[in-house]
């Protein structure tokens, strides 16, 4: 009677250990909280060249593991963030940056959102200005139409087009 419940409980207790865990050799220890956060930020801004839509913090590809190890090694040697990213870009190319540097090649990439918002604002502004200009000067209904409308609303159907 209780056996199915027991088996279910046993299976649940096994659950976590069946899940994928990072390999022990890939666990890094840090002296301070800031260093750990710095490592997390760096690895989440670097892109895996093999599995191209993942950052190296999330990717399990061997190359990402090597890149994480390099980031850790350079950090422990006292390298700055720019030096670390620069070293990886020097090997794997601009591709590994999720945040490309602003230069002639990437300026459009950075400017497009601004350009799009400006164009959108211009369109909205034009529409609003036009609506004001024409909306005030020309009443929607002429006096004659207004009179006809009130007749119809009053229930006098004789005016309605048949």
């Amino acid at each position, binding site marked *: 009677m209780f056996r199915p419940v027991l088996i279910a409980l046993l299976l649940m207790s096994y659950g976590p250990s069946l899940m994928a865990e990072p390999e022990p050799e890939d666990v890094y220890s840090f002296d301070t909280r800031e260093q750990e956060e710095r490592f997390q930020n760096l690895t989440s801004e670097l892109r895996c*060249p*093999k599995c*191209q839509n993942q950052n190296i913090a999330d990717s399990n*590809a*061997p*190359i990402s593991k*090597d890149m994480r190890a*390099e980031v850790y090694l350079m950090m422990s040697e006292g390298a700055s963030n720019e030096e670390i990213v620069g070293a990886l*870009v*020097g*090997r*794997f*190319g*601009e*591709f590994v940056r999720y945040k490309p540097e602003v230069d002639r090649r990437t300026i459009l990439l950075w400017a497009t959102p601004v350009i799009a918002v400006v164009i959108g604002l211009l369109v909205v502004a034009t529409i609003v200005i036009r609506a004001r200009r024409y909306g005030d000067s020309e009443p929607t209904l002429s006096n004659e139409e207004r009179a006809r409308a009130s007749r119809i609303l009053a229930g006098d159907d004789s005016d309605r087009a048949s």
Partner: protein
Amino acid sequence: MKRVFLFIPVVIAVVLGVFLFAGIGKDPNKLESALIGKPVPEFLLSDLHDEGRELTPDVFKGQVSLLNVWGTWCPACRDEHDDLVWLAEDKGIRIVGLNYKDNRDDALVWLDRLGDPYQVSIYDPRGRLGFDLGVYGAPETYVIDGEGIVRHRHVGVVNEKVWEQDIEPLVNRYKEKI
């Protein structure tokens, strides 16, 4: 004047169309190497066949070579191996092998059984040179000129078609410069 504005969406669509069409058919998995035009990174690694012999970038000096990154764990490397043997034996191309993240014994058995297209074999069990080269998946093949400068990288299998279209013209061009 107003009519002209009506054509703006068409213009945008055409420009975007041309721009996006240029991207069709490009394989996003093939990245240009960051080392094109730069020398092969410094290394000091042992010869696959002779543990005591140390190799440096000097192995590339004086001749145009292909640098082929491979490992026995890599199925696509098995796939291209016969073509590499064909290049080395029939075409007389100098190929330097970089045995990448592999085990020396397994690699030697592989070369013994399938033939050895490599004039020099570099043994890189920890993938240090591979990492410095920006290798992100074997097999990769580089064209290195006579001065040890990286000229081209091909990611993936080298076969007759890749050789004729991408690699042979480059090899011939840099051979003329020597």
